[in-house]
């Protein structure tokens, strides 16, 4: 015990003898039923440091931070705050130590106003508080950061980017000394991300420590003082600035995982397979998710959709795959109107990201791989004898698909929920592609997947394009879009802003379009 403590001390002395550690994690382990989320994690954060946690999805970054904020109790290991050993029993204890976190899924009350959300985070305020005093205090901080936030607006009306600023203000109002930001740039345009980094640098000058979680290499290189790499629940290395570059970090993060190789050939024809005209969709709250939206998809094309999350991408995918109905507009498939017809289901297939909780995915989680694979075609003759299932044909079909898509499915009859995210995604892809759709809609298909599985998804999409399938690829990672797409369409507030050519455009141009500026505006 003593030894390991000295060990971590030595490490930080080695880096900079004047730095004092605000946080030490020692040999943290955390298991959930059937899963080891954190195996053995040790790392430390110094005062006035931006320390990045880097790792693939599922490496344990978020779990580790939930341990730090007191949401999860570790099974084993020690946490030291400023050298003192601490046991957190609830988030309250963690807040009392000056630790605050911007969660990846924001911890805001959508129905409440901005003011009430910030007020909720403040401690030491009297039960009968003065609205005026606290409004002034909060407004002062908002002005300081030059933000455009109205205190009385309900949070659900705000963009996701604005909601993130509220989360940050919550922490600053509490005067937190250690700030944790869990993938904060996922919902920002490149320009907004730059602004966030400036704020972070300013906080660093005020001797505050920041734990920054990301898997975007570019950002990690830009902002980190130190990087700790997590892999499968273990902390495998910590590197200081100057001692790492993109390729070393990537190889540490991925290790020996094999990434499937694929080659994309450019063979787009000018035939339009899908023509979306003036599409409007309103959501449950009566606001427009899609507003007079137009899009044209060509045969054999991979059309990337760029945009900050929450600008109508989800609604677009849901309308195309038949989960939502349109309020206005038409969807034409080779000049045939399929707007509200059942023809949509066989013409367009859809895949989406696999959420961590496995709760809302395109499969029946408690049913087996065999059953899930025939869900789209169970009515067809080959899988039934009169009204009974043809078990033999179903099994044979499953064996073929498992072989073809390299699905690691476990013993026969295992419920799909026990598969890893990557393998669930493969089951869905196998099912969706089994009917040879003309159009594939992929909504964040690689979110939550490890790099190997993500590469596999890319390969399937590229191979499909070779066979003449068209893909609408909705993704939040610009690098992914730039690599894969033949054209990129940019969305903002439910409208199409314009198309760009991924070979000629710049990140800056796409970023500006993501915040609503049409390409013509620049001139």
């Amino acid at each position, binding site marked *: 015990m003593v030894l390991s403590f000295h060990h971590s001390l030595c490490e930080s002395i080695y880096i900079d003898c004047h730095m004092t550690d605000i946080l030490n994690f020692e040999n943290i382990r955390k298991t959930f039923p059937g899963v080891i989320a954190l195996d053995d994690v040790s790392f430390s954060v110094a005062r006035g440091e931006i320390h990045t946690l880097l790792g693939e999805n599922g490496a344990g970054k978020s779990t580790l931070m939930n341990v730090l904020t007191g949401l999860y109790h570790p099974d084993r290991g020690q946490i030291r705050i400023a050298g003192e050993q601490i046991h957190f029993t609830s*988030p309250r204890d963690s807040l009392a130590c000056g630790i605050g976190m911007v969660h990846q899924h924001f911890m*805001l009350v959508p*129905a409440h106003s901005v003011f*009430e959300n910030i007020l909720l*985070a403040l401690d030491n305020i009297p039960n*009968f*508080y003065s*609205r005026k005093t606290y409004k002034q205090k909060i407004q002062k901080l908002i002005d300081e950061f030059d933000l455009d936030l109205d205190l009385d607006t309900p949070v659900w009306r705000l963009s996701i980017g604005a909601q993130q600023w509220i989360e940050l203000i919550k922490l600053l109002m509490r005067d937190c000394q250690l700030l944790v930001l869990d993938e904060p740039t996922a919902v920002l345009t490149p320009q907004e991300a730059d602004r966030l980094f400036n704020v972070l640098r300013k906080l660093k000058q005020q001797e505050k420590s920041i734990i920054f979680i990301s898997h975007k290499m570019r950002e990690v290189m830009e902002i980190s003082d130190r990087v700790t790499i997590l892999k499968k629940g273990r902390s495998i290395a910590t590197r200081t600035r100057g001692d790492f570059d993109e390729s070393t970090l990537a190889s540490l993060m991925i290790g020996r995982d094999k990434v499937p190789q694929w080659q994309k050939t450019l063979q787009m024809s000018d035939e339009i397979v899908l023509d979306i005209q003036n599409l409007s969709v309103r959501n*449950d709250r009566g606001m427009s998710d899609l507003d007079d939206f137009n899009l044209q998809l060509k045969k054999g094309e991979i059309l990337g959709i760029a945009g900050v999350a929450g600008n109508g991408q989800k609604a677009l995918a849901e309308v195309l795959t038949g989960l939502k109905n349109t309020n206005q507009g038409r969807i034409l498939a080779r000049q045939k109107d399929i707007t509200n017809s059942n023809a949509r289901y066989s013409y367009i297939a859809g895949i989406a990201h696999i959420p*961590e909780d496995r709760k809302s995915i395109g499969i029946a989680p408690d049913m087996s791989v065999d059953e899930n694979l025939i869900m789209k075609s169970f009515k067809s003759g080959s899988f039934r004898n009169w009204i009974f299932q043809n078990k033999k044909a179903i099994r044979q079909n499953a064996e073929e698909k498992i072989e073809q898509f390299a699905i690691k499915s476990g013993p026969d009859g295992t419920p799909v929920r026990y598969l890893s995210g990557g393998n669930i995604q493969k089951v869905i892809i196998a099912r969706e592609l089994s009917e040879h759709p003309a159009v594939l809609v992929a909504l964040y298909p690689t979110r939550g997947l490890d790099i190997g599985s993500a590469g596999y998804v890319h390969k399937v999409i590229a191979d499909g394009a070779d066979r003449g399938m068209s893909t609408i690829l909705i993704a939040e990672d610009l690098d992914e879009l730039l690599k894969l797409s033949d054209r990129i369409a940019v969305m903002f507030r439910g409208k199409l802003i314009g198309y760009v050519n991924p070979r000629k455009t710049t990140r800056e141009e796409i970023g500006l379009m993501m915040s609503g500026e049409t390409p013509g505006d620049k001139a």
Partner: protein
Amino acid sequence: MLEILLDATVRAGTPILFATLGAIINERAGIINLGIEGLMLIGALAGFSGTYLSGSLLIGVLAAFCATFIAGSIHALITVQLRGNQIVSGLALTMFGVGVTALFGKGMVGLTIVGFKRVAIPGLSQLPIVGKAFFNQDVLIYFSFLLVFLIWFFFYRTRWGLGVRSVGENPAAADTCGFSVSKYRFFAVTVGSGFVGIGGAYLSLASTPMWIENMSAGRGWIAVALVIFAGWSSPRAMLGAYLFGGITAMQLRFQAMGTTISAHILQMLPYFFTILVLVISTQRLQKGASQQPEGLGLPYDREDRK
């Protein structure tokens, strides 16, 4: 004529108002309470017994509050601490209330007490039409007016109220801000149940100063529906409760006037309107004007992987 009808409206609406306010406090913290009917009966019997044994109406009301506070804590224990199914626990609470009051109320059947008397508020009670109906009533009715305001003030002007609302909307957000979700929910369920009990006590201490088995007669269920109609807001609960009070008063009036419409049909009216209100308000819910707390009905487990 209108004055008399309005007066009867307020008197018939008050027990439903108390029950609805209590249910709103429950649901604002995210806990569905279908035990309102049972709680009203427990409150009615406890209130009557307390007054009969002590001779004091105040003690009766306090007894009703305490008895339902305790009964409500059973629901709180199951739904908050043990994260049980809120629907099942609530239904069980109603059945428990019906049974336990029938058992212990046997000795109270046929006994009489002196109920709440009208106290006119000087000046205000002289107002035309509304004066008599709203300001020449008993103390419990005045208390219900105050309670409507107090609950609104509590929810929108105090930190505790903000905590209760946040716990009902997004418990994880409240938790990460240092609020104890279970404490706030437990408090809301028990205190809310206490107010439901006062609604029950109004029946046995003011409406008809006696104990009759199953005397709440479905008013608890009406309250459950009214919560949705009121959009979880206490001032609108007042409106809804008087609407139902008005229908009850009107059908009684019709019966007294001796119409040819069957009494059974007339007695059906309040329940018929409950269904109507639910249909209308659910349609409003679907159109997106929802005020429903987002965390309503969902148990909160901190380590449940999100």
